[in-house]
Structure formats: structure tokens, C-alpha cells
């Protein structure tokens, strides 16, 4: 079993190539043995036919000479120089080379069957065939022995060349298969990389099922991933519904508390009553705002905003100012609105004014409002429509920006809910826009930028 972390590519490569190498080795060996047998057979038959020709010549030319045909045969036979030795029926040397290679024991030629053997001749390995045939020369008759031999070097060279070619062909084949496996695996695994992209595009906000066509081999993975996605989605929906329901249920009693607190404050006459009902009212307002912000946050995070309507960001900012202008003047905020004509975008007017309102509330809540400069600006360029809220307060360091935007986080202890910027950020993102902290020497300047229609 291979280690689980081995790359698929290496794994498949090994799976392909190792058996292939083994199989090739077996096939190659078999082929070499076969070649050896084949070439030995071919050379031996040549040697034998030469021996037969010499033996016949011995009869024809009375044992002394070789005919011209046989001589041609001797010089043109493949496999190197041929040596021969002929003994007459009387056992004496008749013609050829004087000393034939000695036959090993048991290698005895009979009239029916020639014998082949390997021996030494002048220090070289040679292949010998010995033939025994009956001759009748008139003056003498009996069995003549013909020995024909040839050096093995030539046939070995021939065999080696054949064997090495075979080896080369098999080697090339193995390399080719390995190469195809190595690069083919990458190609073959492309559906998996596609799948990876599809999974990568999913996020906690988008756990939609993967619907692309996949090879049957990964169908199971996709089915199970989809099943997991829908389970996680269901759990998240249930949780978000719970939070939303909880905030909703809390809001009603809080609205009651708030209105009763306002009524108490209005009826308070003694300084103690006024002080205490002021504190009660402030707490009730805080609770009310928190419950509402939770609901808003849930709504923004839960579903994409309705983008069908075209609205004017300048009008949105103007509405927000109309709503909170009295509060700003009462608190001593030095306010300025700088509009630069219509800034049309697609989006949900209520959510967008909530985002702008949150920026204004943040500026007033987290700074001393008396004497605070607050400037709201709307601008439009080729690609974006922007609304900017800038104040002269304490400011946010760029290092703190990520933390400032997180849910329930506050840079400085204060009366806010810690959701204001998170909501503005989520609303902005939901509209395909971006919330930016513009670097300032003093104060905070936050821009909500949206795509121009």
C-alpha cells in the first residue's frame, strides 16, 4: 500500500511503469533467448549444409579435392571463416586443416545423425559439426568423417546486435509509456482541478450545489460534498433564522421599554427622577438600537439586496441628513454637506441609508460631538459613485481598520453596539461596492464606493 500522501501523478506513474518494466524484462529475456535459439539454428544449418557439401565432394573427387561450388560456399558462408577436416574411410587424414577441434565425450557422430558441439581451436571458441557418412571409393570403402567448424565470435556479434536492438526498442516503449503517463495524468486530472475551482468559489455565503458535469469516478465526491454543503447550509439557515427571530422577538418588548422610558422622562419633575429616567432612557435606546442592528445585520448577511431599483446616492445622503440633522445641530456638530450632483446606483434605498446613517452615528458616538467637524460628500466618477463621511475626531489607524469593521468590536470603549461598521461593510459588499478608510492626518474619513450604473 502506497503512502496516502503520495501525489496522484507519481502514484499512477508507478502503477503504470513498474509492471510495464517487469513485463518488458520478461518479454525481452524471452525474446533474447528465442533470438539466440533462432540464430544458432540458422548458423548451424549453414554449417551442416557446408559439411554435407564437403562430404559429397570427397566422394566425387576421390577424397582429395573440393569442387568449385563448395569452395564458393566456403568463402561466402555467413558467420565467419569456415574450417574443415576430412578423414578417409581408413581413418587417415584426407584433406582440410590438420587438427580438428577435439570433440567432448559423448559427442559421437553416427551415419544417421550429425553432431554439433562447441570447442576450442587455437585458443578461440568455435562451433563444430561432425558428420559421418559412408563412402565407397572402389579401392576402399567405409565411413568417412567430416568436421566443419567456425569461430563463434562472428555469430556472437550478430546476436549481440540483434539483442541490443530489441533492448532499445523495448526501452523506448517503456519511456514513451512513462512520458504519456506523466503528462497524461495531468490532462486526465483536469476535471479534478476544475472541481477544485468550483469548491474554491463556494463560501459560507454561497454553499450552492456543484452542478458541473464531472467524470463518473469523482461523482461520489461531488455528491457527498453537495450533501455536506446542503447540511451546512441548513444548519446556518436555522441559526440565522434563530438569531433573526430572537432579535425580532426582543425588539417588541424593547420598543415597549423605550416608549415607557420616554414617558417616564417626560413626567419626571425632581432632579433625581430626571437623572434616573435619563439613564433608563439611554439604556433603552441602546438596547433598541442593538436589537435593530442585529436584525439589519442578519438581513444583509442572509440575502442579497434587491438591486432592481436605480437610486441616487446623493438623495440617500440628503435623507439621512434630514433625519439626523436636528440631533447633530443640538449636539453642536459643525456640519457640512458637499454634493456633486446625482450619483445613480442600483440598490436598496433603506439599506444604503442605514449604511450612511451608521457612519454618521459612529462619528458622533465615538467622538465628542461638540465642535466636531462632520462632512458628508457624494461624488461620481467614470466607474464609481461614492458617499464619504469625514470627521475631525480621534481617527482610526489603518492597522485597526480590520478590527474596526469586525462584528461586536470597538476600538475604544463606548456606547456603540460594535455593529455599525460591520453593517455598513456588509451592505456595501452586498451591493458590489467597497468600504474604504481614506488615510487622514486627523480624524476619520470613510468612503462607501459603489459601481456606477
Amino acid at each position, binding site marked *: 500500500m502506497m503512502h496516502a500522501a503520495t501525489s496522484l501523478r507519481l502514484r499512477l506513474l508507478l502503477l503504470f511503469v513498474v509492471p510495464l518494466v517487469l513485463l518488458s524484462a520478461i518479454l525481452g529475456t524471452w525474446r533474447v533467448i528465442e533470438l539466440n535459439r533462432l540464430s544458432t539454428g540458422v548458423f548451424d544449418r549453414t554449417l551442416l549444409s557446408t559439411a554435407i557439401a564437403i562430404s559429397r565432394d570427397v566422394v566425387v573427387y576421390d577424397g582429395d579435392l573440393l569442387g568449385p561450388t563448395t569452395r564458393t560456399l566456403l568463402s561466402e558462408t555467413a558467420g565467419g571463416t569456415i574450417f574443415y577436416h576430412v578423414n578417409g574411410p581408413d581413418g587417415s587424414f584426407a584433406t582440410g586443416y590438420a587438427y580438428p577441434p577435439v570433440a567432448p565425450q559423448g559427442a559421437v557422430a553416427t551415419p544417421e545423425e550429425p553432431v554439433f558441439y562447441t570447442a576450442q581451436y587455437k585458443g578461440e571458441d568455435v562451433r563444430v559439426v561432425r558428420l559421418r557418412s559412408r563412402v565407397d571409393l572402389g579401392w576402399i570403402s567405409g565411413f568417412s568423417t567430416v568436421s566443419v567448424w567456425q569461430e563463434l565470435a562472428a555469430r556472437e556479434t550478430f546476436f549481440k546486435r540483434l539483442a541490443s536492438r530489441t533492448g532499445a526498442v523495448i526501452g523506448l516503449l517503456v519511456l514513451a509509456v512513462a512520458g504519456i503517463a506523466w503528462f497524461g495524468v495531468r490532462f486526465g486530472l483536469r476535471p479534478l482541478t476544475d472541481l477544485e475551482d468550483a469548491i474554491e468559489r463556494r463560501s459560507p455565503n454561497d454553499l450552492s450545489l456543484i452542478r458541473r458535469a464531472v467524470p463518473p469516478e469523482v461523482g461520489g465526491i461531488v455528491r457527498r460534498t453537495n450533501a455536506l454543503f446542503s447540511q451546512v447550509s441548513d444548519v446556518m439557515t436555522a441559526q440565522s433564522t434563530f438569531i433573526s427571530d430572537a432579535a425580532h422577538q426582543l425588539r417588541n418588548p424593547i420598543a*415597549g421599554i*423605550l416608549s415607557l422610558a420616554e414617558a417616564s422622562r417626560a413626567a419626571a419633575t425632581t432632579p433625581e427622577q430626571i437623572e434616573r429616567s435619563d439613564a433608563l432612557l439611554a439604556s433603552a435606546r441602546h438596547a433598541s438600537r442593538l436589537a435593530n442592528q442585529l436584525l439589519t445585520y442578519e438581513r444583509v448577511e442572509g440575502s442579497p439586496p434587491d438591486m432592481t431599483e436605480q437610486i441616487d446616492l446623493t438623495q440617500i445622503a440628503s435623507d439621512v441628513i434630514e433625519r439626523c*440633522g436636528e440631533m447633530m445641530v443640538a449636539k453642536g456638530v459643525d456640519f457640512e454637506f458637499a454634493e456633486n450632483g446625482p450619483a445613480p446606483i442600483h440598490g436598496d434605498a433603506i439599506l444604503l441609508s442605514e449604511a450612511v446613517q451608521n457612519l454618521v452615528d459612529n462619528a458622533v458616538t465615538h467622538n465628542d460631538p461638540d465642535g466636531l467637524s462632520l462632512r458628508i460628500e457624494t461624488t461620481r466618477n467614470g466607474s464609481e459613485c461614492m458617499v464619504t463621511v469625514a470627521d475631525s475626531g480621534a481617527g482610526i489607524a489603518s492597522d485597526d481598520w480590520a478590527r474596526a469593521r469586525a462584528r461586536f468590536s470597538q476600538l475604544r470603549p463606548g456606547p456603540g453596539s460594535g455593529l455599525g461598521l460591520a453593517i455598513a461593510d456588509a451592505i456595501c459588499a452586498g451591493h458590489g461596492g467597497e468600504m474604504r478608510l481614506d488615510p487622514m492626518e486627523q480624524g476619520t474619513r470613510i468612503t462607501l464606493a459603489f459601481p456606477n450604473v
Partner: protein
Amino acid sequence: MRIAVIEDNEALAQGIAYRLQDAGHAVDMLHDGLAARDHLASEDADLIILDITLPRLDGLSLLHELRLAGDKRPVLLLTARAETVDRVAGLDAGADDYLVKPFEMAEFEARVRALLRRRDAPLNITQRIGNLVYDPAARQLRHGNEPLDLTRREAALFACLLDAEGRPVPKSRLLDQIYGTGADVDDSVIEVHVSRLRKRLAQTDVSIRTLRGFGYLLEAGG
């Protein structure tokens, strides 16, 4: 004035009732739709505060029934936040105004005053701010017992700011009020009128505050 508060959140209804009673009104509290229908069928009301979400009979259906029956009493509809559809439906069903929950009590009181004023317009009711009294029918402003002379446009400007109940009014809307919607007048004309009106108000405790780039609001005291 007698006001019917139809709201199933009893604590909220009680809080609203206290504020209205403090302002000198008589309040009838109803907590469900059917009880409200019975009450309205037999009892008088100068204003109806109506929540949309009610048990037994919802606010929109009740409003629809009232209008079908020819009941013209002013209705201030309370809608849950961001339910745009509800708001449109509410105005279609014949509500005179709507307020999105949660609302500031000051805002609520302003809407109530506006609706009561609208109802009583023929009776020449006067509006007060600080130590000033404004008579919309006669377009006359009095400082204590002294009448302050205002031109027609200054009076229109003052009335518009006064109607906003302390909220800022954008310049464009002031222009529409003084010169009529769509009049081809430059924004800066407003500044001239505001500056003149400020001089007239110099001796009073009412002042006009500027929100740079936006508009003006009327502030009493100080």
C-alpha cells in the same frame, strides 16, 4: 383631542398613550384588530394610530374596511422596519401617514401634531415655537402680542421650516415651497430670504441654523 391607539405591543401602546396624555389628549388603547373595529364603529376618534401587525384582524384589512365604509378619520400607520411593500400597501389602503418602527418619540409626536393640524386646518389653529405664534391661515407671525411683518415669501419660508418640526429642510424643498415646484431660480436666492428672515427674528428666541451645503432648520431657545 381623542386618539385611538391600536397596537398589540401593550408596553409600546402604553408608552405612546402616556406621551399623548401628557400632551393633553384622551387616549383609547386597543390591542387587537377585531376589538379595534368594534370600538371605531361606535366611538369617536380625531386620530387613529394603527399598527399593521395585529392579532385577529391585521391593520391593513381594518384600514381597508374603514375606507370602504367611507370613514375619513386620519390614520397614522405604524409599520415594521424596512417593509417597503407594507408601506406602499398602507398608503394605497388610505393611510394619511406612516411611521417606520422603531421611531423616536419626538418624531412620532411631530407626525401626530401634523395630522391633527391637517384635520383642524379649517379651524385656523395656530402653531407655536419658542415665544412665537404663527397663524397659517392669515400668514401672520406674532412675537408675544407684537405682530412681526413678513413678506409673502418670508412667511412661506418660515411656515416651511416650522412644519419640519425642528428637522433640517433642504434648500431645494424650500425653493419649491417659495417659488413653486420646478421654478428656474438659483439656490443662492434662498440665502437672501433666510438672511432677511433672520433679521426679523433677531429679537426673538427662535433662530435659523444653517447646515452648510444642505439647508436650514428652525431652532427655539438659546
